[in-house]
């Protein structure tokens, strides 16, 4: 038995039959009926379906993860990250290839799996522990630790259906974190809970890593991957695109996704082409992630085969609760005299007054009259605002509700009866100096 590696993956592949999975005819009646009517036709159809509707979520992936390594897995949606984790945690089986795992594995694919809303916190600790593979004696031994880590205190004997989502996640994470596996797989759990608890989770995970255990960490939070992991694996379309030191791979990954021409559109009638929309941060680097209070530069790269005279251009930022803010030439009246040939036009949104959430950038190009659209008002890019609001002086107990908050925040002050004045702004961030040093250290 080779105990050098924790996980060894050879030529791993997973195929999903996309078409058949969603086939509404895949009921019992259909199966019986078609088998009776013409067995041959059903067989033929099966063959045909195999040819056309298969989808390889993962293919030809080989990896060796040594014991004690902390590996980050990054990649876009549909790159195969989730499939990879499901295979490693044995939820589903590979179509080809094999996986060798040395040691007890625990996966936090979604915290709180198996939590029953009717049961109390105490009961759920036992249930969840058992589902994750803990012995009863083990749970009893760690019970106090789990409760303390979760900070749920007096709510221990309250049914979890009455918990806030923050409490729920805290309890769930602490059960899983006390499983003490040799290999820990973490997926996006840190996207929930308040900032303070997120830090606590990260600390727990890095203490895991320091004690010589293996950690596999899947996250969109590239800072976390950079800080936590020694090594990163970048998955793209089910293949390993790059495998190497975390800092390097993360940089390359973000370079790549930021430079992808996510949006392009053409209007033949006006001979106008949007070649790409590029988002840049205040340092002029391409990025799809911004901090609250940071500047965001939107560049419209165009090709105007025919001169487009005095167009009106509108950019708008939309959050999940609707429109947030806009830069609209129809209103400000500032428009280019003419767009002709290849060129670029930019708009700098200063000090983004928005909370950490996901946003959509929309754009429209209208003709001289303002009546007709050259490019319809539509989504041209997606970006995230991420950041720890504690650095901006936000210290509310319910900070975990930020994802559901109204996103736009203008600077404001509270004047309390006792004369206290408390001012808040996403602009004067305490982390400003940090960004500055980062900017300086860049080539």
């Amino acid at each position, binding site marked *: 038995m080779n105990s050098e590696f924790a996980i060894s993956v050879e030529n791993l592949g997973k195929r999903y039959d996309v078409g058949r999975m969603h086939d509404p005819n895949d009921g019992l009646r259909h199966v019986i009926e078609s088998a009776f009517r013409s067995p041959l036709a059903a067989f033929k159809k099966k063959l045909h379906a195999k040819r056309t509707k298969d989808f390889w979520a993962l293919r030809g992936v080989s990896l060796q993860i040594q014991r004690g390594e902390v590996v980050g897995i990054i990649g876009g949606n549909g790159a195969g990250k989730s499939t990879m984790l499901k295979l490693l945690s044995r*939820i*589903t089986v590979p179509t080809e290839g094999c996986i060798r795992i040395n*040691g007890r594995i625990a996966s936090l694919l979604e915290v709180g799996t198996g939590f029953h809303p009717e049961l109390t916190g105490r009961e759920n600790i036992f249930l969840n522990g058992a589902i994750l*593979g803990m012995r009863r004696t083990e749970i009893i031994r760690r019970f106090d630790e789990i409760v303390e880590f979760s900070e749920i205190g007096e709510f221990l004997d309250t049914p979890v259906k009455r918990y806030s989502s923050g409490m729920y996640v805290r309890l769930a994470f602490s059960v899983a974190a006390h499983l003490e596996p040799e290999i820990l797989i973490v997926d996006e759990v840190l996207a929930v809970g308040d900032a303070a608890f997120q830090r606590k989770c990260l600390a727990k995970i890095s203490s895991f890593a320091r004690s010589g255990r293996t950690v596999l960490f899947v996250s969109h939070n590239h800072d976390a991957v950079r800080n936590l992991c020694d090594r990163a694996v970048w998955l793209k379309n089910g293949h390993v695109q790059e495998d190497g030191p975390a800092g390097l791979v993360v940089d390359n990954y973000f370079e790549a996704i930021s430079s992808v021409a996510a949006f392009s559109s053409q209007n033949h009638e006006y001979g106008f082409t949007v070649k790409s929309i590029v988002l840049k941060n205040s340092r002029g680097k391409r990025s799809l992630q911004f901090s609250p209070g940071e500047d965001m530069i939107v560049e419209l790269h165009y090709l105007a085969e025919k001169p487009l005279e005095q167009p009106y251009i509108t950019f708008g930022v939309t959050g999940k609760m609707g429109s947030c803010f806009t830069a609209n030439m129809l209103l400000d009246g500032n428009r280019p005299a003419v767009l002709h040939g290849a060129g670029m036009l930019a708009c700098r949104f200063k000090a983004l007054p928005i909370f950490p959430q996901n946003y959509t950038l929309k754009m429209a190009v209208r003709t001289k009259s303002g009546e007709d659209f050259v490019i319809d008002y539509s989504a041209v890019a997606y970006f995230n605002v991420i950041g720890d609001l504690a650095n901006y002086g936000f210290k509310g107990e319910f900070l975990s509700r930020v994802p559901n908050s109204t996103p736009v925040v203008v600077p404001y002050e509270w004047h309390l009866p006792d004369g206290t004045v408390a001012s808040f702004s996403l602009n004067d961030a305490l982390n400003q100096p940090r960004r500055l040093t980062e900017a300086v250290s860049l080539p």
Partner: protein
Amino acid sequence: MSEVLIEADRIERQYWRDLWSFRELFFFLVWRDLLVRYKQTVVGVSWSLIRPFLTMLVLTVVFGKLGKMPANGLPYPLLVFCGMLPWQFFSTAITESGNSLVSNANMISKVYFPRLVITVSSVMTSFVDFLISAIFLVPLMMWFRFAPPIQVLYFPFLAMLAVGASLGVGLWIAALMVKYRDFRFIVPFIVQFGLYLSPVGFQSSIVPSQYRLLYSLNPIVGIIDGFRWSLLGGRAPLYWQGLAISVVEVTSLIVSGIWYFRKTERTFADVV
């Protein structure tokens, strides 16, 4: 430290070892289901007694009083209750275990453990209810001043046979339900018609003797007859051939159920 090897298209050798290491999960799931079932109810666990008691009254009136079925000198409520005990267990067990995988879909798609745990534990949950209901036999027999015969020693064996029948059918339905939700409609039918096709409200001796063997192909017939024989004695004579058929059928149901369950288990997470 143990090494786990996961390969495409191969039954994992460590399955039964895993099942053993997750043995405590059986009890946790049973405990959860029992705990949850009676949360926010007023009379709580008494429902396990009220339900069979009321059913017994209705069946006694319908079959005994209105239908005037023969009772061979036995108190009709007692006759009905001994038939209802295994039937109610079987019907709730196949309903619950049939739904078990689908209703625990979130667990199946997020965590690994042998899926057999879920289905088996839901049969066990129904079995606990069965035991609670069985307690009701004691006051019932005292009421009718009826002492159970010596064959009552066979009762555990017959109870196991009922567990086996529930498990065998439950495994099949659970695994099929993952892919074919049609069974959500089929199972209530089985339960509804089964009540009349099985000798719950009457004795199977009223079936003409030339059809008796055919009738016994329903595995529940042998089990119910066995229950009556072991609890009520000679006045509910046992039809041995029927019981033998049941044993054979239950065994093959379990074996084939485990086989089919294991065969489809690997893709549950992708399909459910």
